[in-house]
């Protein structure tokens, strides 16, 4: 069970801490150096809390292990935050806010459940996102904001994403039914590959919808302007 928690929960601490940092970094009373220090202390503090929470024997080896683990997670959170902060300065604030919301949601799911439950909940949430993209495209096509060709392009990528999603689900079922940890980990690795393909294709669908919608709105504005000039 501990292995399962580490596997699915190990990545969530930096995300959770990044979310905390997003709040801390809004306060200008702290200098940048102080903020980094806060992140590192937060990492160490949370890992020590985790040690007590899991009722792990408090011997020197465990304490040192957890302090180092927490320190590294704090450093990872600082690195992640710095990367995001650069993008925010580049004007991508909305993207970052969206990313943070997704990170918090995923952390919530991964932190709160044992592995089967966490994996299947993540799987369900991702599927709902793509289902929505289909109905959004269809409603845009009805309004004439997306042409038939554009709709066909989105449909093609959607179906590819769906195929990856179905394959990921089938592999997840095999992982769940695996009798030993080695074969389960091998299936989970395969599952991650299909899920990554699915995420990449889904992102492509969302970007196309945004791009086509923007172009058609600009065309409508242009037509209105021309009509007004006449």
């Amino acid at each position, binding site marked *: 069970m501990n292995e399962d928690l580490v596997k699915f929960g190990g990545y969530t601490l930096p995300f959770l801490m990044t979310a905390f940092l997003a709040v801390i970094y809004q306060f200008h009373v702290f200098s940048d150096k102080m903020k980094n220090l806060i992140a590192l202390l937060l990492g160490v503090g949370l890992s020590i809390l985790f040690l007590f929470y899991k009722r792990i024997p408090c011997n020197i080896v465990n304490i040192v292990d957890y302090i180092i683990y927490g320190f590294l997670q704090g450093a990872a959170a600082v690195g992640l935050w710095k990367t995001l902060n650069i993008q925010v300065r580049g004007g991508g604030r909305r993207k970052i806010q969206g990313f943070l919301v997704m990170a918090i949601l995923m952390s919530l799911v991964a932190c709160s459940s044992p592995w089967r439950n966490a994996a299947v909940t993540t799987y369900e949430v991702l599927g709902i996102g793509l289902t929505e993209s*289909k109905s959004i495209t269809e409603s845009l096509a009805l309004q004439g904001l997306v042409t038939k060709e554009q709709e066909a392009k989105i449909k093609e990528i959607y179906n590819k994403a769906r195929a990856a999603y179905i394959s990921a689900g089938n592999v997840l079922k095999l992982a*769940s039914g695996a009798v030993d940890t080695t074969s389960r980990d091998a299936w989970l690795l395969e599952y991650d590959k299909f899920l990554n393909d699915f995420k990449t294709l889904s992102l492509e669908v969302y970007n196309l919808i945004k791009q086509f919608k923007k172009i058609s709105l600009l065309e409508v504005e242009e037509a209105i302007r021309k009509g007004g000039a006449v």
Partner: protein
Amino acid sequence: MNSILLAIELLALVGKLVPTLAPAIKNIFDMIKGMDVPDITHDELVVRVDAAQAKLEEWK
């Protein structure tokens, strides 16, 4: 008009996400209270994966 449609679509998405995420939030509260959070069985996972796959229809 577009903003209203977008808001409706977002509300629909949140509505669909709530039933999926609510048990995860309940699990967090249970863990804070010190209760053990049991995992789902293999059969339950298969049923949920099948249901999620069925929801994502092929676009013909």
